[in-house]
């Protein structure tokens, strides 16, 4: 279980971070993920326009590499309830591989509002103190000009590449390619406060737009933003959705949950994935060696060179094969102990 709000507040006090508490309507932070199941929290001021497509390039993930993370990831990795993504969720060990991108605009604000792991309250602290907290949990705060759109190309490496987590988070429910219902352009958020439940809808927007929340219902994904004065809702949308027509609401918003007890072991003994990974690694070696310069340099030896490099891959492939075998064997064992002999 993740930390409770009370535990977090206690920890901040321990670190002697001064903060004020305000009870008020929900505000959330965006959680995004890339194709390799790496997760990012992007926290921004109200006025800041965040473009996931640009961020994706700046992180070195290519043009469409970043999209909103699904509900299960929220629950599992950040361990916060729906509607409550916050940089503070990084205190949980399950979130240790999540990368945090903070709007550099926070630094110029006297203070910003965040959720302390629950969305019926917000606390205001200034960026220095947020840093203090993040440092205490071993995270380095990364302030980014979220609106910047630098060219990323051969000679200009992606400027945020160092913010990509070094490894993927592992989910109990492996997140497969999202079906179209997943990519619902209507981002539903729930806004709750103690007085009444206000629900609003956020319409999908084109990446150049900012949009205004209107109504929402039980939500799929997150939201967020904060500024010095008030809690404002803002949302960022996956660009790939830009061209799709707006879809109708709730039916599509219930995610297809993978069949109940899908455990991570299943993905590790997945023959398709296993073979694909081997092929991908081999291909990348071949492709990286077969270049015009090398063809000149090595000529007839190029084949040998490539072949040698592929052999070096052997160690890594043996490791993943061992994981595969062990997982398969374990599943057999599990099946065996649960076996009920047929009644005659």
């Amino acid at each position: 279980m993740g930390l409770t709000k009370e535990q977090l507040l206690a920890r901040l006090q321990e670190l002697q971070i001064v903060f004020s508490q305000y009870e008020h309507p929900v505000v959330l932070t965006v959680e995004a993920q890339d194709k390799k199941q790496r997760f990012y929290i992007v926290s921004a001021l109200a006025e800041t326009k965040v473009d996931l497509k640009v961020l994706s390039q700046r992180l070195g993930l290519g043009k469409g590499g970043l999209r909103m993370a699904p509900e299960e990831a929220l629950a599992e990795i950040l361990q916060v309830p729906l509607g409550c993504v916050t940089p503070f969720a990084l205190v949980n060990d399950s979130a240790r591989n999540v990368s945090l991108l903070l709007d550099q605009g926070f630094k110029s604000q006297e203070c910003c509002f965040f959720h302390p792991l629950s969305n019926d309250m917000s606390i205001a602290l200034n960026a220095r103190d947020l840093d203090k907290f993040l440092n205490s949990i071993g995270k380095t705060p990364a302030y980014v000009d979220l609106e910047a759109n630098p060219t990323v190309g051969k000679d200009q490496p992606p400027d945020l590449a160092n913010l990509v987590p070094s490894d993927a988070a592992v989910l109990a429910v492996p997140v497969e390619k999202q079906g179209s219902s997943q990519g619902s352009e209507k981002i539903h958020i729930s806004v709750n406060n103690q007085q009444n439940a206000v629900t609003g809808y956020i319409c999908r927007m084109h990446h150049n737009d900012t949009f205004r929340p209107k109504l929402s219902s039980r939500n799929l994904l997150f939201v967020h933003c904060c500024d010095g004065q008030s809690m404002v809702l803002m949302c960022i949308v996956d660009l790939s959705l830009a061209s799709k027509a707006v879809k109708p609401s709730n039916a599509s918003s219930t995610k297809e949950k993978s069949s109940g007890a899908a455990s991570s072991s299943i993905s590790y003994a997945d023959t398709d994935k296993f073979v694909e990974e081997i092929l991908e690694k081999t291909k990348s070696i071949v492709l990286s060696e077969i270049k015009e310069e090398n063809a000149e340099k090595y000529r007839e030896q190029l084949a040998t060179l490539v072949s040698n490099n592929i052999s070096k891959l052997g160690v890594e492939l043996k490791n993943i094969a061992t994981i595969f075998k062990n997982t398969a064997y374990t599943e057999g064992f599990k099946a065996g102990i649960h076996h009920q002999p047929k009644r005659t």
Partner: protein
Amino acid sequence: MEQKTQEEDQIVTPWEVAAEKGGKIDYDKLIDKFGCQRLDQSLIDRVARLTGRPPHVFLRRGVFFAHRDFSDVLDAYERGEKFYLYTGRGPSSEALHLGHLVPFMFTKYLQDAFKVPLVIQLTDDEKCMWKNLTVEESQRLARENAKDIIACGFDVSRTFIFSDFDYVGGSFYKNMVRIAKCVTYNKAAPSFPSSFPHLFSGKDSLRCLIPCAIDQDPYFRMTRDVAPRLGYHKPALIESSFFPALQGETGKMSASDPNSAIYVTDSAKDIKNKVNRYAFSGGQDSIENHRKYGANLEVDIPVKYLGFFLDDDAELEHIRTEYGAGRMLTGEVKKRLIEVLTELVERHRRARAAVTDESYACMMGSRHAPL
């Protein structure tokens, strides 16, 4: 006659390791003092021949450098008599560092190369007593450590992992008592195949090979003394030198100083930071001096670590030559080390992610291990 005082001698016991004042551990002296034997090149070549694959990097680099009766084990193996491996861990802290991984990495190689079964003991009961942990906490630590151990890539179909709390009883306990009647020491039981009737039933003459760090030699010497009295083969040992701490070769790594070691949970950034900041360098204090005199390879930690983890002999030799001559700088060596360690830790983490409670249950399950 010259008397050497106690303090001047190096101290190597299972509880404490310290070099002679200002120096480093003298392994030749150790071998003499303990009475075990050097693992020489002919033995290494023999291993390569018998297993049909190149010897493990730890053998090539002299990390595992001493043994007792390893040649007997190889003789028996050549005659078609298999053996089993035994290694263990006292689960006292959650984090495993690279020094802990070394014996497990070598054991995995032995298992793969010789295709033999392995038993892994988690001495949670001992830790519970000596470190004043609750029973439940020791068991929990044992389970967590087990997952890291399993992530080293042991063959689940040939590995039996057990925690003392869960397993001790039956034949194992009977052996413990038999041994206790001879000597007060409980780590001996797993060295005897009759302790594992569900794995080795009827194979009382099966030999046991124990990879361990050389400071464990005194423990196992006791076991070896007891064995003939109980009618068993003496367990064979294959022993490693110590994995040096990041800050230098003055002793072993310590779990109480996080900067003395690289942990399997360290991020790429942590590794980079720790190596750059804390790895003891044998380079000279200025670039001019360095180019003139070269690096002191005897004390340089990055080069030593590369000796453990960089598989490519040619590349290591190149680095040692260039760095020793002063043509390569400490920064470059550290950079290469960071790459190697990051890849290692990354691979481990990935494997670790695949280990579930079921994998642990599977390896703990009482079932026959095919020999």
